[in-house]
């Protein structure tokens, strides 16, 4: 039992973004969603999160429809979207401790440790608006270190704007997550270096 997607169809205006998308994801599996710009990757991910309503089809988590069991599903899900979800006026560690995931206990020390691990020890005390785009992305991704208990990770372009070292580090994080039995859905234009990841191509028919 895991994430199942059945005949998912999304329309934007008059055109169909994608139609009939179906897959089944189990523990330890990763899904790499590929497609050109505008092929609906972000919309697909948002539908999987239960944010966007699909025109047709359904998403199920552990057998139950996602839209009917939102609270439970969201407690098992970690989503990092295009926008990093960081408040520019808060310090980097404050974003993780206060802003990141409402309700999750995260102390200052835990936030600092996570930033240290991701290689941003020096930037931890700086407000996010002063960080570069790549550094901001890494602060957002530090959230992955803080919530190991959430089995499903849905990540939209996690490797964008990252340099090679950071990219490799994040790929390792993702691999470790799958090795622990977690599930992963991600979109990226670069190769995520995830051996064994299934691939889903969007926009092939449109």
């Amino acid at each position: 039992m895991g994430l199942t997607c059945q005949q998912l169809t999304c329309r934007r205006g008059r055109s169909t973004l994608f139609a009939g998308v179906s897959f089944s994801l189990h523990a330890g599996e990763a899904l790499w969603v590929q497609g050109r710009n505008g092929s609906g990757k972000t919309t697909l991910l948002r539908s999987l999160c239960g944010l966007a309503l699909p025109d047709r089809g359904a998403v199920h988590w552990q057998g139950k429809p996602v839209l009917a069991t939102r609270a439970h599903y969201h407690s098992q899900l970690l989503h990092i979207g295009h926008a990093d979800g960081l408040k520019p006026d808060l310090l980097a560690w404050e974003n993780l401790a206060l802003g990141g995931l409402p309700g999750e206990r995260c102390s200052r020390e835990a936030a600092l440790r996570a930033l240290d691990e991701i290689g941003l020890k020096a930037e931890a005390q700086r407000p996010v608006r002063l960080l570069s785009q790549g550094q901001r992305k890494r602060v957002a991704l530090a959230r992955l270190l803080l919530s190991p208990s959430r089995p499903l990770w849905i990540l939209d372009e996690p490797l964008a704007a990252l340099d090679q070292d950071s990219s490799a580090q994040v790929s390792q994080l993702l691999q470790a997550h799958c090795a622990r039995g977690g599930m992963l859905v991600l979109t990226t234009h670069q190769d995520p270096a995830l051996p064994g990841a299934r691939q889903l191509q969007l926009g092939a028919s449109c």
Partner: protein
Amino acid sequence: MDQPYYSTANGARRRLTVFTFASPRNFYHLAGRLIPWFTALGVLAGLAGLAIGLLFAPTDFQQGDAYRIIFVHVPAAWMSMLVYMAMAGWAGFGLAYHTGVSSIMASALAPTGALFTFLALWTGALWGKPTWGAWWVWDARLTSELILLFLYLGFMGLHASIADPRRADRAAAVLALVGAVNIPIIYFSVYWWNTLHQGPSVTLGNAPTMAPAMLAAMLLMVAAFWCYGIAVALRRARCIVLERHGSAAWLRRRTK
């Protein structure tokens, strides 16, 4: 047959349910068949009502012939309220059941309702000049109508400001429902604020204080406005269906 059925264009039989006309295609055809009837009824009732009201109803003792404008003012005011409730109802249905046609119906009703409200305001002012001596005296009834006009404009403005039609429908539906809940509160507070307008002289279930001919004219005009409202809303709804589903196969076949 124990359940009602209907025949589709290609001869298949389908069961008739509440959601049968939630399909744009079925709705489009049904609306097309209803519009001529409601138009005819509306025109007839309107002509009859205006004839009785303007020609046959007796002159009022106090107000002379100027009172005759109530045959347009009162039905317009009633309809403006009724249409808002209908609009909120359709919008709520569409929000709950994700039926696009219900939301289209709500969007189609809005301009008609706004027009009725504007008509009520305008005829109210025309009536006010000879009776109160001023075009606008901020009485409770007319002020509430003005606020109702703002509610309609807010609904239409919100709908027009959101690009995605489905999202626009749903956001405007929330606003319509919030507005519907607030209308009693608004009316109450405006009455509290001012009590100048005469009490209603025709209410459902109460004996009217008007002559029978006046009552007949009033009810005919209400029926006329109602039929006009339905006909126009259905027509507008058909246009919106064309706009949104223009590329659908069943429409392309029709317009060939």
